[in-house]
């Protein structure tokens, strides 16, 4: 009986693995707003958006807006969880941006193109500006169901929105 149970669950796990291997759980649409700041000098901020497991292990980086590697360390949380690793961020890296609203689309896949499976994750948003401040927010999100969330920044990013489109 025990053997059969083990066998059954093995099949279930195997099927689940098969199912998950080619389907990502959800897509994300992130509307991020970088505010106009009346400061001199103004440098465009470095921005990182990434997903972690609930245990705070890096899953994938969704967007990275940066210039020089020398300052990557100032994205303190992103640097410790993702940046300092050997991962290749080329596919999600872009130039820094002027103040304005931007839409970041995530296709549900990690940096190596593997689908990210359904479940609970932590979405991290970090914005840091040279000679300016730093804003960091981390929030729980469930990739198993549709949802809409708001992230309030303190200064370096304005109220921003996340839409989860589960598959």
């Amino acid at each position, binding site marked *: 009986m025990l053997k059969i149970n083990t066998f059954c669950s093995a099949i279930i796990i195997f099927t689940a693995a098969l199912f998950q291997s080619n389907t990502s759980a959800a897509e994300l649409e992130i509307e991020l707003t970088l505010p106009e700041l009346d400061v001199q000098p103004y440098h465009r901020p470095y921005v990182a958006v990434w997903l972690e497991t609930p245990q705070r292990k890096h899953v994938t980086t969704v967007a990275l807006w940066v210039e020089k*590697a020398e300052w990557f360390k100032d994205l303190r949380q992103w640097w410790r969880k993702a940046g300092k690793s050997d991962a290749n961020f080329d596919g999600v890296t872009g130039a820094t941006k002027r103040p304005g609203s931007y839409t970041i689309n995530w296709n549900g896949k990690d940096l190596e193109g593997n689908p990210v499976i359904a479940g609970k994750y932590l979405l991290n948003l970090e914005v840091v500006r040279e000679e300016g401040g730093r804003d960091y927010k981390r929030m729980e999100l469930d990739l198993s169901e549709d949802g809409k969330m708001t992230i309030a920044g303190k200064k370096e990013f304005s109220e921003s929105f996340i839409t989860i489109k589960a598959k």
Partner: protein
Amino acid sequence: MKINLLKSALVGALTLTALASSYASAHAQWLVPSHTSLSGDKAHYVMIDASISNEIFSADKAYRPKQKGAEYDDNLIMALDPNGELVSDRIRAYYLQRKNSAAVKLADEGTYHIAMKREPRIMTFYKDAQGERGRVFGPKNSKDIPAGAKDIRTMKSFSTVDTFVSRNGTSKPALLGSGLEISGPTHPNDLFVGEEARFQLLKDGKPAANVELAILKGDTRYRNERNEVKVTTDQQGFFTNTWQHPGLYLIEASVSEDSTEKGIDTVRYALFTTLDVAPE
């Protein structure tokens, strides 16, 4: 026999505690790195300041170069690279009256363990004929010890004054292997407010159990209370701390033991480790 052993262990522990507390008021020594975490592909320099002071991380008294009157000392500060090798580049620490400053090149990627390179110090304590306490730097036969002195006790003291810096990623820091030092599991360059760090205190590379440590946030000049956090290592030498505020911290500990070395009564080990805690 067993009981006797246990007894002497207990007595030893008591002596240890008594000594530890009596020397706890020794001046703090510290290193302050200009950076603890660096990124980018090219080699970086990090600036290390060293001083002896009671106001933590406010410089007060520099270490004197070994050669009298010298403006610098190339043998004051050492660094172990991410592979555990001693950095062979010259580390020139300038003597600046109240502090010493040195630039250390981080040629490799990973974590550097940077420390003061110091010889053990020998001090002799005594009571003179009038019963006044005194201390000299040197062994029992030092000529500065007055005739008729009593209760002569000689102490050999090893201090670890160290910090950690990582370039383009972290690696398991190399151990000094002698004296007191801290080791993982938490990486010393991955400390954030609100998170619990777990370290193991080692003495000569082995776990140091039941040792009290003081965790002291720097900039004591700018507050009235020192607000140090006291923790004690467990049987395997582990201790934990959850950081309340971002900033530079000094981890202090001292252990004193009876010595088996001829002419030395007590051996004392002290620890002064600087750690950098980031805001969340």
